[in-house]
């Protein structure tokens, strides 16, 4: 093992970690908000919106992110009306496009996950809330959202880790995050295995931290499900 090379590679790759994290956190936030919108369309009664949401979820879950990203970045610019619109100054930026396509994709997945969480809320608990006069936003905020989020959390953790790995595709659109930098190093040194090993360690550590944080969150949100604390036992 050439430790000097590994060390040098690691240093180069670590410099790209902030870019990976920026892509990751922004796309999770934007994607999460978008997912809420989609899931609202999907479960709210309006058939047109619901069909739109279904189509959206189908397309963005069903096709590879690589293709989506390519079409967003290179494809949108092909249309004159976009190129000459007020959006172009934003869409011109590779970083914006990368975040946008990552967010669009994760929104499809997250919407399905959130919907699963909502379905897991006991209809009886919802009825109980209605029976004391809750409805609309209050019902969502106090009963539906907390329970649904708790139910969705395990699946959502998985999705977040998948997103972390998906940021690797951003080098396609000239955003040089960890994997892109690793591939560039490889095409300079041709030492595929060593470089990818370093990259793998970085992703593994990042994902491990995320998963630990998520399971901590999960633990703190599931007091009501844990085994009966001895003090309460009859």
């Amino acid at each position, binding site marked *: 093992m050439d430790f000097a090379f590994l060390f040098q590679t690691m240093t180069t790759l670590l410099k790209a970690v902030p870019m990976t994290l920026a892509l990751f956190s922004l796309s999770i936030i934007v994607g999460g908000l978008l997912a809420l919108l989609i899931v609202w369309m999907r479960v709210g009664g309006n058939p047109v919106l619901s069909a739109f949401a279904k189509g959206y979820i189908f397309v963005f879950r069903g096709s590879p992110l690589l293709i989506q990203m390519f079409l967003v970045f290179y494809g949108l610019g092909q249309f004159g009306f976009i190129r000459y619109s007020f959006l172009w100054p934003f869409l011109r930026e590779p970083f914006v496009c990368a975040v946008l396509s990552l967010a669009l994709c994760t929104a499809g997945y997250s919407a399905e996950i959130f919907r699963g969480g909502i379905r897991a809320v006991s209809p*009886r*608990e919802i009825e*109980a809330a*209605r029976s*004391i*006069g*809750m409805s609309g936003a209050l019902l969502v905020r106090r009963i539906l959202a907390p329970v649904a989020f708790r139910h969705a959390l395990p699946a959502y953790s998985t999705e977040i880790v998948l997103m972390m790995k998906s940021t690797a595709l951003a080098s396609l659109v000239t955003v040089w995050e960890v994997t892109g930098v690793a591939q560039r190093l490889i095409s300079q040194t041709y030492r595929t295995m060593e470089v990818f090993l370093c990259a793998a360690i970085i992703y593994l550590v990042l994902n491990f931290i995320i998963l630990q944080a998520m399971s901590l969150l999960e633990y703190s949100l599931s007091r009501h499900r844990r085994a009966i*604390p001895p003090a309460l036992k009859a």
Partner: protein
Amino acid sequence: MPGVTRLSVRNIRKSFGTHEVLKGISLDAEDGDVISLLGASGSGKSTFLRCINLLETATDGEIWVDGEQIRMIHKGGTSRPASQKQVDHIRSELGMVFQSFNLWSHMTILQNVIEGPVHVLKRPRAECIAEAEVLLKKVGIADKRHAYPAHLSGGQQQRAAIARALAMKPKVMLFDEPTSALDPELVGEVLRVMRALAEEGMTMLVVTHEMSFARNVSNRVVFMKEGLVESSGTPDEMFGGAATPAFRQFIGHFGTGQ
């Protein structure tokens, strides 16, 4: 103030698809009335209660709560409440206790009880907590206030559900088979709480299979059959000589198992 009409239902009808479950039911409950609703399975008792607080929308009929009529829009065979705001308000005046408790599993018992007063009635939290503790003591589970529903026995959960409904200071309490999911040992606890409520003058409408409750606690018994009120009267009338043959047959059935 006895004599005030808390709840008045006029000629309620309800169909699911082509199946008419309620065929025109009327009922008045005055202050302090405790009305037992009896009837065979499928006779429409639950549906009736659910129509009153609009968990189902009746196909036809009028509902008045504490003198206020629930406005409905009837259009082309379907009907819906005219104002969600009014529905929420009316519901906050009707306490409902479900057969299956339906406590919110992500909240402690205390949080369950103060949820309505704090977030629906928007009253000060501290005040609500103080009242909740009194209520929990009254139903005998004050020591469980920081436990989650999953950690309570059925009887304790049912009593917590009653406390939750009472915390809204409802004008009328609706109970849907409050004891039938309970072990026989727990039935006693819950019935004791309900009897105490009745003695304090709470207006109650109780769907029940507990004949002893119907006979000893309520002041009126309504017997439903196939979506209609078959007969009604005071417990003495109903369980005495004045019983109709149908009701006599119905209560005869209860004798077998117990």
